[in-house]
């Protein structure tokens, strides 16, 4: 006889930041229907308040001041509330808040001030939060859809402008493809292990390896297909084709949010599935997991292609699309390092640190691009920054800081992220990929510092438009980038309790 669980067993309190935001998004959707067209700031304020509330809750949970619920799992193992969950929650909620700040005036300017924007953004945020806390492949899939579908709509938010529509359609079709790969991979993993829960998968993999069962090939296939599905989301080469077109066509405020949020979600799921669920998948007496070689090869390709192609770009949005591909490569290096059993936790911490550092800097960059963009979405070329230091010294200084951070120059957040990523790669004996990472970082200095050159040493009269929400977003990004760069122990302390490897 089937025994129904009680509502108390679900441990819903442990999921409070995520479920609260989901409930908030649903209610704001209903409220927005009755908000008149010229008062959409109400919806924006509600969304910001919802994000802030969840952010505070997630921060309290991160600093272990309040413990929500009892125990680490909720919804019968579908949801894991551990330190990694808290870090992902804080990063993505902060990104969401910045997303609202940079979007409000931008939407006014492009004549698309609609309430839908804000709650679609909230739904995406909830999707990322559930992805970071997934304890089961089913959660990963549902969260991936919750993360992707609002982003498809947001990419096309500038209809009937053709570029925006094109980017939405491209993103949607390729996204549907990648979801198909992911589901197929999940089916294969389920076929090999008989479960979709990470802990169960981990135990089953142990047994498969110990007894050398033939289902290890099925598992290998499943791991590969899952990697394709998630690799698309984080824009890893060779699944990166959509990124430049979508980033260029979509409204810039959407790109600012999406370039961080989709990556956070994708990498959180990659770490959960591979580092947590399949870290013990070691074939034929090798020293590291079977997926490690593939992962670091993809990481190396991503870093090389992203950085080299970025050099020749003349459009800012396209340039930072390739830059975001390159950064996906750096984070993938850490994910690959997680394949060595001794380094798994350290590598997962490096991923969390890099994502946190990247979130601050990248949103700041796109906020600056929004400030120079014209209302008809033109003027996003490199020339639009020419001579900015004369007319807008503060803005130019902020952009310079972001460029330093993306290059990985010390005393900025980007340096701290790269430091931990390459440290974990060396700890896992992945010297070639660490060397490639450092070399490509040097290459990236060329196109990042060229922007600084343009702003300080060339003549020009850039027109900027910075209302206070955008200014505050840029200031927050500057403060975050500097703070995390000067006090790296902030990040280290936040991440050091992340334990993803299952114990025997």
């Amino acid at each position, binding site marked *: *006889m*089937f025994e*129904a*669980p*009680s*509502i108390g067993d679900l441990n819903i309190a442990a999921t409070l930041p995520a479920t609260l935001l989901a409930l908030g998004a*649903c209610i704001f*959707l*209903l409220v927005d*229907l009755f908000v008149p067209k010229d008062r959409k700031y109400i919806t924006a304020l509600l969304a910001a308040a919802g994000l802030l509330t969840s952010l505070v809750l997630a921060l309290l949970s991160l600093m272990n001041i309040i413990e929500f619920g009892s125990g680490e799992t909720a919804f019968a193992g579908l949801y894991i509330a551990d330190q990694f969950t808290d870090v992902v929650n804080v990063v993505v909620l902060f990104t969401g808040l910045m997303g609202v700040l940079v979007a409000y005036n931008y939407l006014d300017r492009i004549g698309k001030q609609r309430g839908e924007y804000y709650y679609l953004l909230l739904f995406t945020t909830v999707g990322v939060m559930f992805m970071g806390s997934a304890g089961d492949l089913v959660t990963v899939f549902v969260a991936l859809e919750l993360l992707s579908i609002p982003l498809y709509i947001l990419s096309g938010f500038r209809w009937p402008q053709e570029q925006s529509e094109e980017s939405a359609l491209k993103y949607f079709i390729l996204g549907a493809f990648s979801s198909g790969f992911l589901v197929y991979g999940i089916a294969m993993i389920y*076929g*090999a292990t*008989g479960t979709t829960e990470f802990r169960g998968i981990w135990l089953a993999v142990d047994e498969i390896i110990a007894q050398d069962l*033939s*289902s290890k090939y*099925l598992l290998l296939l499943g791991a590969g297909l899952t990697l394709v599905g998630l690799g698309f989301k984080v824009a890893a080469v060779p699944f990166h084709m959509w990124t430049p077109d979508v980033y260029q066509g979509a409204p810039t405020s959407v790109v600012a949010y999406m370039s961080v949020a989709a990556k956070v979600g994708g990498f959180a799921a990659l770490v959960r599935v591979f580092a947590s669920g399949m870290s013990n998948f070691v074939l034929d007496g090798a020293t590291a997991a079977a997926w490690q070689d593939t992962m670091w090869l993809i990481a190396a390709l991503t870093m090389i292609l992203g950085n080299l192609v970025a050099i020749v770009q003349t459009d800012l949005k396209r340039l930072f699309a390739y830059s975001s591909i390159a950064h996906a490569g750096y984070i993938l290096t850490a994910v690959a390092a997680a394949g060595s059993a001794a380094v798994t936790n350290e590598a997962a911490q490096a991923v969390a640190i890099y994502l946190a550092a990247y979130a601050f800097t990248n949103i700041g960059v796109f906020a600056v691009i929004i400030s120079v963009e014209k209302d008809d979405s033109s003027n996003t070329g490199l020339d639009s920054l020419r001579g900015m230091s004369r007319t807008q010294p503060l803005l130019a200084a902020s952009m310079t800081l972001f460029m330093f951070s993306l290059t990985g120059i010390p005393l900025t957040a980007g340096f701290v992220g790269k430091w931990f990523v390459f440290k974990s790669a060396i700890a896992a004996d992945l010297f070639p990929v660490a060397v490639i990472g450092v070399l490509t970082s040097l290459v990236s200095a060329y196109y990042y510092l060229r922007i600084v050159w343009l702003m300080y040493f060339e003549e020009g009269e850039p027109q900027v438009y910075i209302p206070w929400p955008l200014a505050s977003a840029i200031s927050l990004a500057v403060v975050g980038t500097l703070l995390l760069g000067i006090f790296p122990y902030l990040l280290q302390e936040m991440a050091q309790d992340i334990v993803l490897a299952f114990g025997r």
Partner: protein
Amino acid sequence: MPSDFAPISALLILSVAVSLIIVFISRLLGPFHPTTRKLSPYESGMQPFGEAIRRIPVKFYRIAVLFILFDVEVIFFLPWAVVFRDFKLYGLAVMGVFFFVLMIGFVYEWKVGGLEWD
């Protein structure tokens, strides 16, 4: 265990084999005198005109998408209703959450005028 899937693969092979055999047996044993009339898409006299893909008002697509809302509802409600007694209050609460989320979508499409034809 992969061996558990043996019956499925047997079924797969069997169904492919049977369909191939049926196609080829009728070709081998039956008389075969092709004419233009026989090979045309509609055999019984109609002259084919135009293309199969025609322009359809986009409203029909919208109705089809909106229909999914109720479609999903029925798909989930039916099995739930069958085992409703076993789930007790828990089942009611879970279905309540599902229904709440679904109804939000319904209210939205109603309020923005998605259900109106013109």
